[in-house]
């Protein structure tokens, strides 16, 4: 088993003919993901990826023709909120938005609309989802992952790759990898992912990768304390980041001494989470936790 995406995923790609969309769709198809449709307004009837994927004018048309149940968005920031809303109104229940740089205020109404439609949004500004051996919905490199018992949830992209690569190297596969994104408003947070991993019988341990800024990790710690019985290994980036400087991600800023790595690490440790000092130590600590 796995969470969110698997062999039953029927994926529609919004922005399939764009540079990023085309490149990553090819990677997803190569990985074996069931990509059933693409959407580029005005190009209905054409195909993408060497004739493998039919293109539609709208998500609604794509859903009607192909029964797509999941959408991935590679649309530029100015148009991405609309793409999310289009997917939600077309009845897609899982929407993954990779796009970086969406104006934060645009996501307020967009998120509310997604909820109203009963859909789940992953991201924006995230690397997406990967269930090793089954489906890759996003940009996480498929070759570093392998099927196994570890669930991974993270705000960061490349830092996740680092952890997954290390897990694979010591022989620990992953049940699913969830990149939740680093923007101020994201559709799925740590708690949502933790809940899914806790309920997934194949996930035996969870890796939670966080960073400075905000208090999502502290909230996750509270949730773990109450509801998560599986071992959790954590890592928090930005222990040595200075106060008041925004470290790339819109969320990664320590303001007024709040959102520091130290308080996050302490919150996690207080509920029994083992926190790694080095990102590459994560794998070893998971192994130790699983052998207990």
């Amino acid at each position, binding site marked *: 088993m796995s969470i969110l995406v698997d062999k039953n995923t029927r994926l529609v790609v919004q922005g399939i003919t764009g540079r990023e969309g085309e490149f990553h769709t090819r990677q997803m198809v190569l990985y074996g993901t069931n990509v059933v449709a693409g959407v580029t307004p005005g190009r209905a009837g054409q195909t993408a990826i060497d004739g493998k994927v039919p293109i539609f004018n709208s998500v609604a048309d794509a859903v009607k023709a192909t029964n797509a149940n999941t959408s991935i968005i590679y649309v530029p920031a100015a148009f991405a909120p609309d793409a999310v809303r289009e997917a939600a109104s077309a009845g897609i229940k899982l929407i993954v938005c990779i796009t970086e740089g969406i104006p*934060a205020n645009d996501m307020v109404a967009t998120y509310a609309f997604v909820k109203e439609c009963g859909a789940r949004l992953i991201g924006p500004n995230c690397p997406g989802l990967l269930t090793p051996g089954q489906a890759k919905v996003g940009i996480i490199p498929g070759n570093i992952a392998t099927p196994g018992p570890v669930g991974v949830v993270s705000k960061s992209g490349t*830092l996740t790759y680092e952890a997954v690569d290390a897990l694979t190297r010591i022989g620990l596969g992953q049940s699913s990898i969830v990149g939740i994104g680093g923007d101020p408003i994201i559709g799925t947070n740590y708690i949502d992912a933790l809940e899914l991993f806790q309920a997934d019988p194949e996930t035996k341990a969870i890796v939670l990768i966080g960073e400075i800024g905000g*208090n999502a990790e502290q909230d996750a710690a509270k949730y773990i304390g109450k509801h998560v019985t599986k071992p959790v290994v954590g890592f928090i980036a930005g222990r040595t980041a200075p106060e008041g400087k925004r470290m*790339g991600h819109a969320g990664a800023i320590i303001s*007024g001494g709040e959102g520091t790595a130290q308080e996050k690490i302490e919150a996690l440790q207080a509920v029994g989470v083992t926190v790694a000092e080095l990102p590459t130590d994560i794998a070893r600590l998971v192994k130790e936790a699983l052998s207990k």
Partner: protein
Amino acid sequence: MKLHEYQARDICAQYGIPVTGGGVATTAAECRAIAEKIGAPVVVKAQVFVGGRGKAGGVKLASNPAEAELHGKAILGMDIKGLTVEKVLVAEAITYEREIYLGVIMDRASKRIVVMASAEGGVEIEEVAKTNPDAIKKIEAHPTMGLLDYQARNLAFAVGFTDSKQVRQFAGIAMALFKVYIEQDASLAEINPLVVKADGSLQALDSKIVVDDSALFRHPELELMRDASDEPLAEQQAREAGITFIKLDGDIGCMVNGAGLAMATMDVVNLYGGSPANFLDVGGGAGKDKVKAALQIILSDKNVKAVLFNIFGGITRVDEVARGIIAALAEVNTDVPMVARLVGTNEVEGRKLLENSVLIPASTLGEGAQKAVAAAKEYAARKGL
């Protein structure tokens, strides 16, 4: 992007918020002229992007134009927390009875825009949040309908207004500030203090607007307001090249793809006894030109004694990064040692390209950091630094 007080004030005025008149001066003579025009006591306020300018002597009261000129002379050119004061706002000095805080901000947890008010105005809201959190009243705006009249009125009651005229005026200002926040794509809009004058009317004495950088593409008029004076040259160059760069005090230059990994790289350098010279995220899918620009920016810092490349290729292709490093090295004359830890997409091709270069290879982040720390020490010893 932060706006100056006077820019924020002008925007607030456009939305009908009562602000304090006056003008911006860059010379002491202009301060005098503005004070003469106002014809009443004035405040001369430094326009710099740092808090605590009052304590630093950047805000002064003048009872007449001659005094305004003297204060202008003292404040212009003054150094406040490393920033030079280039402009001052000369505004009428207002006497008042009460100070209130009013702000609009995004609340990540509720995923709503929140309007906050506090009867403890005049001090930084972060300070109130720490010492007396109950004094801050918050209202969540509706995600699509926005701030509603009744909500704005309730906020007025919550901070202690009882007079119906004042309640109406406060609610109107809150509605206007919310509109400023939405229409200007702000990530923060605040009036602090919003004062109650002796006649009972309200007026904004100081305001602050921070614009969401991600929304600047649809606000060319705000981009024109950019004052890069508080932005170091290297950070400005990086921003223009599409790179996120923050200068730090150490001596190990870092080039990384991805913000989280870049922070983790800094942490690991520290763990092995080194000190990073910067945070640098070249972004996803960085090509040759970006890598070259990033390396030039890193090396423009004379404190740098070693450079550590930590690239985990996903969208980013390692061979492209290697080409960028080679191209940069051909142009920049440097003997600073460099350690490269390049893995992921097209890693074999990338490594091949760098085979005959001066770069020190590393296969893990820990190994890369240790080698960079050692190389920096060796370089310092060799140069007698």
